[in-house]
């Protein structure tokens, strides 16, 4: 899921060759999405609608880059995602 350089597959123009992310966005969160495996039906709607692409197709959250917007929790029909206070995870 993380950004990987794709040197063989892209034309040699402007792409930053190291392709790494220097700063993370996890610190922006005041709430974090927590997935209840038992309720998850693997419909992948959360993965699809996350603006940051921080839920993998296997439905695990990348907390280094998730901004805690809550879109995933709202889109999840079975209610498998809860937004929890970030401070409790510090």
């Amino acid at each position: 899921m993380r950004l990987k350089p794709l040197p063989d597959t892209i034309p040699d123009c402007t792409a930053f060759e190291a392709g790494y992310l220097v700063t993370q966005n996890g610190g922006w969160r005041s709430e974090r999405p927590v997935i209840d495996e038992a309720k998850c039906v693997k419909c992948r709607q959360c993965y699809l609608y996350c603006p940051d692409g921080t839920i993998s197709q296997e439905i695990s959250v990348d907390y280094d880059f998730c901004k805690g917007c809550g879109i995933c929790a709202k889109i999840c029909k079975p209610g498998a995602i809860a937004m929890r206070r970030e401070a409790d995870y510090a």
Partner: protein
Amino acid sequence: MAVSVKNLDSREFFFGHKACAGCGGSLAVRIALKVLGARAVAVLPAGCMSAVGFNFPQLAFSNNALITPFAATASVMTGIEAGLRRRGEIAHVVGFAGDGGTADIGLQALSGAIDRGDNLIYICYDNEAYMNTGIQKSGLTPFGARTTTTPITGSVRRKKDMLAIVAANGAEYAASASVGYLDDYVTKIEKAAAKPGFKYIHVIAPCPTGWGIKTNETIEIAREAVDVGLWRLREYENGQWLENCAPSRPEDLVKHLTRQGRFSALDTDKLEETKNV
């Protein structure tokens, strides 16, 4: 095979960007690149998506991407497409321009590229104001929406009909979409990618920061705009217009507007009036 959530490219090509939490525009870019693939060259003028995507030494695009002068998105795309063709490279050239960059300042370049029939996919992510510089009114700000340049009454002008403008210029394909209905958006991008000539997709992309909505409401609001009939999903193809769906709950229009902070200047009479503009 049609692209869907089941077979969409699992790689992320727009990742780690600095868009606000819940940004609809960033979702439009992320999903489009998943459809167009690693070799697509993304072309962005000044605007939120370039501001949040290019933060040297951090680049949030893992495909090739570059920033153009504000007015020049479509003409820079033309040059890139010609260069790639000259080198024998096969890659989609895709533009991601905001509403200001499309309907106002980039309109001439856009018209030129349509006129030349260049083989390009131009995506306008419409957050209905100049967001990156602090929420100023654009030609696509809807009637009644408060911006920092329409602070008292909200915009007194109606939204330009970009799809009709693009069609009248002679585009091969033009379609409207919503980040609230990604299956439809994905289908339209796929369709555009398979056609030669100039293709235009106009995707409504709510902006929590500028619209006065919660960060988790972006998708709901983008869906509702379609459902209440404010944002019509349509396609222009082979010289014909196709209406994709009829509004499913037009009676909820006022509710849709009043839950967005930007429409707080509208009183009851004006809210009713929005039905006619």
